[in-house]
């Protein structure tokens, strides 16, 4: 039992770090540090930059373009990725549909889809939630009826993140309504967003941005060849996705980065006033979050160690998601408290490239704190709300 990394691991980290420090696109980091949103093109450029180094799908099997890294290597890579304040990797292709295709897809599907996912040539989005079925996913109503060599899809998906950027969508659809359990009769279908009958309607979220959408399907004809795996097995495949989200599900490295930046900010004095770092009450709050985060880091490391030791992930893995989001939201609150009166100005436009500096409101990015805080309330809601996560732990870990 020890904390030290091996020589090899340290060498590996140094190589990665060297590349990030010397080759990572300066303009992308600058946009991130300035709080500027990342455009579709810049996001793709970032992911292609990773691909060119073989780092776009670190968890994939080597034969499909993965790395074959150990759990510790993946941990160190994610750490270095966070240290350059890199954008999140859009998960829908690389972390979600990719693994489903190489696990359950046929060779044709693998050859057709995997390379473009790996290279970020094709932007994917996820069609799971529906207006009537949020936490209760199995109640989904979108139908896919077989008609010759096509499925005809009708229904509505919602909360579809960046659907307005997407080329393709993977959906859970009902191919059979005459089933005993609602989880049966659901299939996993790949749909070209360009297909006639697909329409995308924006949903503006609390902070005023278009991030999610409603996607409508009206008599959309989808070749049967786009069905992944067996008809009616979609529910099982959908759940397998979750396995592939383990690494970084808790966003530990990003949270560590944000806390460190916050401490630096709190240490700076504004126009002769005492720095926030001299406010004991605030620093106690910050320290308490830092402790919780350190605990989460080791809870995640214990999980990774268990997994790489071939054991099934223990109970600790189940709590990574809800503790991780609680900590991210606690950090958001700390940024809002630090902003004080500057939590009020609503000036998102000033974080766009080329905004006139003299027109900027507030020190640094402090006016972005409340927007992030508002937007990230979603983190405890989507991807299985924290209530659902606790139900899962209660049932499958505590046996209640």
């Amino acid at each position: 039992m020890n904390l030290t990394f091996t020589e090899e691991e340290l060498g590996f980290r140094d190589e990665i770090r060297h590349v990030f420090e010397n080759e990572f696109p300066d303009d992308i980091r600058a946009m991130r540090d300035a709080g500027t949103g990342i455009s579709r093109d810049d996001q793709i450029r970032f992911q292609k930059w990773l691909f060119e180094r073989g780092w776009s799908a670190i968890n994939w099997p080597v034969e499909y373009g993965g790395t074959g890294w150990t759990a510790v290597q993946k941990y160190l890579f994610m750490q270095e990725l966070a240290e350059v304040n890199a954008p999140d990797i859009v998960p829908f292709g690389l972390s979600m549909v990719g693994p489903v295709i190489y696990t359950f897809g046929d060779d044709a599907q693998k050859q057709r889809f995997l390379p473009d996912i790996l290279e970020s040539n094709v932007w994917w989005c996820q069609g799971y939630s529906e207006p009537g079925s949020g936490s209760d996913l199995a109640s989904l109503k979108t139908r896919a009826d077989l008609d010759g060599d096509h499925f005809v899809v009708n229904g509505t998906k919602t909360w579809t993140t960046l659907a307005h950027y997407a080329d393709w969508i993977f959906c859970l659809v009902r191919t059979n309504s005459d089933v005993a359990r609602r989880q049966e009769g659901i299939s996993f279908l790949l749909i070209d967003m360009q297909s006639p009958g697909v329409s995308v309607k924006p949903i503006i979220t609390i902070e005023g941005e278009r991030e999610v959408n409603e996607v409508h399907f009206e008599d959309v004809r989808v070749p049967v060849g786009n069905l992944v795996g067996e008809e009616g097995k979609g529910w099982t495949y959908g759940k397998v996705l979750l396995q592939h989200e383990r690494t970084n599900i808790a966003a530990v490295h990003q949270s560590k980065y944000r806390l460190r930046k916050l401490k630096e900010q709190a240490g700076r004095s504004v126009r002769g006033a005492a720095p926030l770092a001299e406010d004991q009450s605030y620093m106690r709050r910050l320290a308490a979050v830092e402790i919780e985060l350190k605990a989460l880091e080791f809870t995640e490391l214990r999980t990774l160690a268990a997994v790489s030791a071939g054991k099934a992930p223990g109970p600790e893995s189940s709590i990574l998601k809800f503790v991780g989001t609680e900590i991210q939201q606690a950090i958001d609150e700390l940024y809002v408290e630090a902003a004080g009166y500057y939590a009020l100005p609503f000036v998102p436009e000033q974080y766009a490239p080329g905004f006139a500096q003299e027109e900027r409101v507030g020190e640094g990015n402090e006016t972005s704190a409340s927007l992030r805080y508002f937007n990230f309330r979603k983190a405890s809601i989507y991807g299985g709300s924290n209530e659902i996560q606790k139900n899962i732990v209660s049932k499958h870990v505590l046996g209640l």
Partner: protein
Amino acid sequence: MDFALNEEQQMLEDSVAKFIGNDYDFDTRQGYAGSPAGYSQDVWRQFAELGWTAVPFSEADGGFGYGPVEVMLLLRLFGRGLVVEPYLANIVLAGGALRRAASAEQKEQWLEPLIGGEIQAALAHVEPQSRYELANVASTAVADGEHYVLNGRKSVVLNGGNADVLLISARTAGGQADTSGISLFLVPADSDKLNVRRYPTVDGHQAAELDFAELRVPATHRLGAAGEAFAVLDGVNDDATLAVCAEAVGIMQIMTEKTVEYSKSRIQFGVPIGSFQALQHRMVDMLTACEQSYSLLLWATMLAADEHADTKQAVSSLKYQIGTAGKKVGQEAVQIHGGMGVTWELDIAHYFKRLTSIGQLFGNADFHLDRLAV
């Protein structure tokens, strides 16, 4: 010891409730917030005609001689209605400073039209470095013959972009954190050398950044005695804190009601989510937070009405409660509404944002608890 409203108070509350209920639904509010001014001039004139803008002013000043209790009645309902019209900025902040410090001539020139709804005003006191320290003023005013020359910056001036006149605090003496040496000046918005950067706030209201260099103000525009403005600002700050807390209680109450209603109608797993005990107990906690906050609001407001010596302690207690319980109620309301709770389309998100702003106004929870922890 009496919690009942007198007849006039009851009439006032009824008329505000009627207005919110009949003329101010959420879509209307969103329309006003999205308009160029960020509020409805018609509605503001209506407030004046109904006498609501006259509530906290003495009859000698052309008001009704009402006090903290009546302002609380108004603001709690403005919270429920998520009213964007700048009552806090005009009447409580600017009006409160004029009421306390203005001369008869100044009142005639500025307070009368303010009460009449003919002009807009704003109090410009907070600065980038001052955070919640009321006495921390770096802006300066140097006497020069019949004028003062002002230099400095002001932060997040509520209603600053709409104001016809700005009440600017600046230091005529003393060190940056001294309570003595602060003066207040009446500055027309169109003054030369005054730069106003207006912007909306996250809660659908309006504010502005001010900066001014070598701004010349006639000595006759000074409010009250030179260097004596702190007491004025301190009193106004307590009034304003009470006012936003009343608004926050109204918001917390309606968010709790709407969350309970939603939980009865939202079906998941074949049953209303309100049937899940974990959510039931959390909604009971929301209700409890509302009741406890409302109790502190009544306590602090009645102390203020009596000008009781404990008023400051009560105001800080209340603001701490609103900062903590308000955050909790707001976050729970959003969480229990699920995805819908984080959409622009639903009012819940906008109540949540207003509560968040109020949490940062006039001292956050930590600031006020520190004041009490002695």
